[in-house]
């Protein structure tokens, strides 16, 4: 099954016949899915359906887990990131990722946001500019601008998560993967992060893993449903939620399956 949003310039990411195995066990089975420009796709499904593994294949993080083998291809702007001559480090600099729990580094707010820029040895002026932009886009700037040197770990959980988003944004990626970014946050902080995502989807390809159907309904343009490693259904958010084509989808979104 494949889902493509009509979009000028073709997909940013095109997943083709992607399968992942942990030794003999299939975790993902023949996934085909395109991601166009400027949109937010929510990948939903019950625990263990492979949705986290799926996004981790999109920036070659999956291979950090021992024993996982990835087959098929993931084209990023037409280039297969699994080609042997592609350096995974370079892939990860283009495709940002935000994790379930905030993963700020033990340093200042500024240095956290500047982390990726330091890796590519940007000059100080560029770093200043991009850090500011990243924090603004992540909706954190007003809260931290007076003291960028404070320890990042002194921020609240929600602020830390938005700092992680700013950190991913500062290197100007086209794609940002969000792996259940609100699962460790309280409702108010979740709301702030969701607002940030809604703002960002105007300019970035966002791929959001969530087990929270309500969140998918609030922020996504499109929903992909995974079950036991298979892509069950994909379509515009309203269509999938109101007129699910598959019995599994209906069961999942109405909470009969968790």
């Amino acid at each position, binding site marked *: 099954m494949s889902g493509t949003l009509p979009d000028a310039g073709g997909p940013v990411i095109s997943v083709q016949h992607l399968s992942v195995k942990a030794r003999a066990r299939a975790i993902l089975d023949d996934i085909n899915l395109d991601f166009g420009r400027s949109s937010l796709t929510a990948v939903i499904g019950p625990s263990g359906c492979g949705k986290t593994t799926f996004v981790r294949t999109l920036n070659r993080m999956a291979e950090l887990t021992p024993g996982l083998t990835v087959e098929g291809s993931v084209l990023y702007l037409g280039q297969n990131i699994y080609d042997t001559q592609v350096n995974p480090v*370079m892939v990860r*600099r283009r495709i940002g990722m935000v994790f379930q729990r905030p993963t700020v580094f033990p340093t200042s707010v500024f240095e956290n946001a500047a*982390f990726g820029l330091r890796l590519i040895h940007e000059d100080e002026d560029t770093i200043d500019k991009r850090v500011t932009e990243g924090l603004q886009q992540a909706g954190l700037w007003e809260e931290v601008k007076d003291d960028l040197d404070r320890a990042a*770990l002194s921020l609240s959980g929600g602020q830390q998560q938005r700092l992680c988003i700013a950190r*991913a944004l500062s290197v100007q990626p086209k794609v940002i993967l969000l792996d259940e970014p609100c699962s460790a946050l309280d409702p108010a902080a979740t709301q702030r992060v969701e607002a940030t995502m809604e703002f960002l989807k105007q300019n970035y390809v966002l791929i959001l893993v969530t087990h929270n159907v309500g969140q998918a309904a609030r922020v996504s343009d499109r929903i992909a449903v995974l079950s036991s490693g298979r892509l069950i259904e994909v379509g515009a958010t309203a269509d999938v939620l109101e007129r699910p084509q598959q019995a599994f989808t209906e069961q999942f979104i109405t909470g009969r399956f968790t």
Partner: protein
Amino acid sequence: MLRQLGPFIVASVPIIILLLIVLVLIFATGFANLGSSFWGSDWNPPKAWGIAVFVVGSFVTAIPALFLAMAIGLGLAIASTVYLPRWATRILDPFVDLLAGIPSVVYGIWGYLLVAPYFGKVLNPWVYAHFSFIPGFGGRAPISDGLGLPISIFLLTLMALPITTLLIRDSLRSLPRELWESGLGMGATRWEATRRIAIPYGSRGILSAGFLGFGRAFGETVAVAMVLNVMAAYPVNFYSATGTMASQMFLNLDAAFGSSSWLAALSYMALVLLAISLAVNLIGRRLVARVVSYEVAGL
């Protein structure tokens, strides 16, 4: 009130032990007055009891050994946690732990019989021939038995290495997996993620490794007594002999039984050694807490 008595007693055990040690040492001195020469450089019992040579000697052997043990320990710990495949880690880690269990007298015998001749015949002459232009590496030629500072520092490095490696390794391993992955997710190489995330995150443990390693090297007795060629003189260059507080006390135990001045001198020296070790540890802890709490705990 009574409810807290039990915990209070248990919590006081280490303090009581420490107090007992200090008190016994103080009584052993008999409050003898060894004169103002005690802090001087002239060690010529029973006329002069200057311990400065040994204080300097303890630092001169322990500090280089500490730096080497920290550098090598950091390298081994990073290799073990980041780079080596699992089968190699499974060989490396237990052997590092095993090194910690080797009695220091075994290091001493090994050093004296097998390593010192190599230092004397090969290593020291080679360094002397090629690096004598560096201050401290020229001057008086090394003696051929190989005893002296280099082998002492070498053995102390080996002895401090397990504790530094072990503690640094544990600090690096304490890094949450998500933090490591999000560094890599930003496009950091493993080395960049180690340098920019794992080491700062583990800095408290790494600094503690330094202070514990210092304690190990600073107080080491038997092995140093065997290979340092202990004498009451400041080192004149890299190859020469000197004395440390611990080795000097050890080698003169006999004298302490026959003379109250000797007993007093060695007890005072023990108190100085203890005071320096404790001070380094306490200052170290303070420093570690101050430096690290801001970055890691966000306090």
